[in-house]
């Protein structure tokens, strides 16, 4: 149940899996995403309502084959350059995309968590999102005949979320903005949760979401695991890091260097410094 992050990722995430890292601005499991990059996992179908810097990094590192999402940007800053480069430039690999609205994605998780094949909503009607994917279809209400929209359930192989804390039995507690994480965990076959800390007893907190251990496959203690997003009650959002990501991610070489030093912990590959040393 309690495992180191590298072991948790190795056991739960496989090449070709459909993986959902969720967290709506708050509690984004960034460090788990980094570990997926370090382990060189490939051909993933990445699912996430709001792919931001963590998916930009995973896409740029070549982990993804497909992205299912509803809003892809660097919140408050601008675009995701690695995502854009993959979509427009096929770098480092072509990226298939399937896009939805937030309401559609949220309902797809709800259907997945509920054991239903699809969800019904008032949405998408008249937009060009319809027709870009077979996963948005009109449906008539069997009682009134009213025309509504259906989207199929999302049932990822693995959900990965970050939370404030867990107890030793693997019950997980999170609070603040809890987004769609409960639904994502309940919709998935396996769930990996990174937490700030493990405690003996989970003191109730107003507005908490509690994930019983029976729906959690593995818990890893990763303090700071949501940075540069934030963990309510532990640390605040690092807005400067989101800003800095814009410059790092614009350029393929600069991004590759960032991967090398920040993710793989290797020394800088810059010819500049090597040349200086030999001279």
């Amino acid at each position, binding site marked *: 149940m309690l495992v180191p992050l590298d072991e948790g990722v190795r056991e739960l995430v496989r090449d070709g899996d459909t993986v959902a890292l969720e967290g709506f*601005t708050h509690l984004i499991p960034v460090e788990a995403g980094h570990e997926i990059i370090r382990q060189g996992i490939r051909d993933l179908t990445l699912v996430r309502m709001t792919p931001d810097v963590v998916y930009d990094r995973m896409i740029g590192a070549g982990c993804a084959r497909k992205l299912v999402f509803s809003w892809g940007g660097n919140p408050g800053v601008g675009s995701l350059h690695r995502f854009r480069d993959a979509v427009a430039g096929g770098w480092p690999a072509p990226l298939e995309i399937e896009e939805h609205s*937030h309401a559609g994605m949220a309902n797809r998780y709800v259907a997945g968590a509920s054991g239903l094949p699809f969800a019904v909503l008032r*949405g998408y009607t008249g937009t060009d999102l319809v027709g870009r994917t077979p996963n948005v279809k009109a449906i008539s209400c069997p009682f009134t005949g009213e025309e509504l929209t259906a989207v199929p359930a999302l049932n990822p192989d693995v959900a990965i979320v970050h939370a404030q804390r867990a107890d030793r039995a693997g019950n997980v507690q999170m609070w603040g903005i809890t987004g769609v994480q409960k639904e994502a965990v309940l919709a998935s076959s396996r769930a990996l949760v990174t937490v700030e800390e493990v405690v003996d007893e989970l003191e109730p907190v107003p507005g908490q979401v509690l994930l019983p251990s029976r729906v959690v496959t593995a818990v890893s203690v990763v303090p700071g695991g949501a940075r540069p997003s934030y963990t309510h009650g532990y640390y605040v959002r690092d807005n400067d890091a989101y800003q800095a990501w814009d410059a790092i991610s614009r350029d393929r070489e600069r991004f590759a260097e960032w991967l090398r030093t920040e993710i793989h912990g290797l020394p800088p590959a810059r010819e500049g410094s090597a040349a200086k040393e030999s001279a």
Partner: protein
Amino acid sequence: MTSAAAEAPACTSDEMMTVTASRALRDGSACFVGIGLPSTAANLARRTHAPGLWMIYESGTLGATPSVLPLSIGDGELAETADTVVSVPEVFNYWLQPGRIDTGFLGAAQIDRYGNINTTVIGDYGAPKVRLPGAGGAPEIAANCREVVVIVRQSRRAFVESVDFTTSVGHGSGPGDRERLGLRGAGPTRVITDLGVLEPDPRTRELTLTSVHPGTTVQQVREATGWDLAVSADLRTTPAPDPHELAVLRSLTGRTPPTHDGRQGTR
């Protein structure tokens, strides 16, 4: 020249736009707020004429009263100051979908003469010139809020004859389209720009210039529009921001770090 300059208020065109947008919000109404200019306008309204404005951010914070402008829709302060925090499915299913929200505030990368909005892609979908963030909450905000207010800087690049991609439906291709599609809200009732205010013509549903900001000419607005912009017979001049509104706005933006960017639209 001199007279236009004399009429211009002592504020920037963005300030003019934000203040005008804030005035579109009624006290006591519920507003679905996107990050950027909509959030600035809503927070300004709450501090001036609409202290009872109920702000909902799509992260699930209902009735948030932040002291600084949030940088993302999920900032911690939104949760701390909210009446309650609900899950994302609950925001969309229980609050937006049944029509509980009076005003939806949206941005746009492109908007056309019928107020249809594109935040998805510029150019061809399969081989885009610019890949934008995408839909987010906008399609259902545009469909289900009682009315929609759009805030966008006016230029030929943004105000186009027809959008490259319809992310959110405005008035479709004209009268009766929203009804035919089963969209229950009124759609865009105002498009507020840095040059003026456009409203759908009651008969044709085409966006029509109904107000120009002080110091701006009709010609300037038409030149910044990618279609032959209709002008209302009773064109008004937008009332300039009063000193209190400007002071509150500047104090708000002054307390917000510079990473804040209104250009991202529907966030």
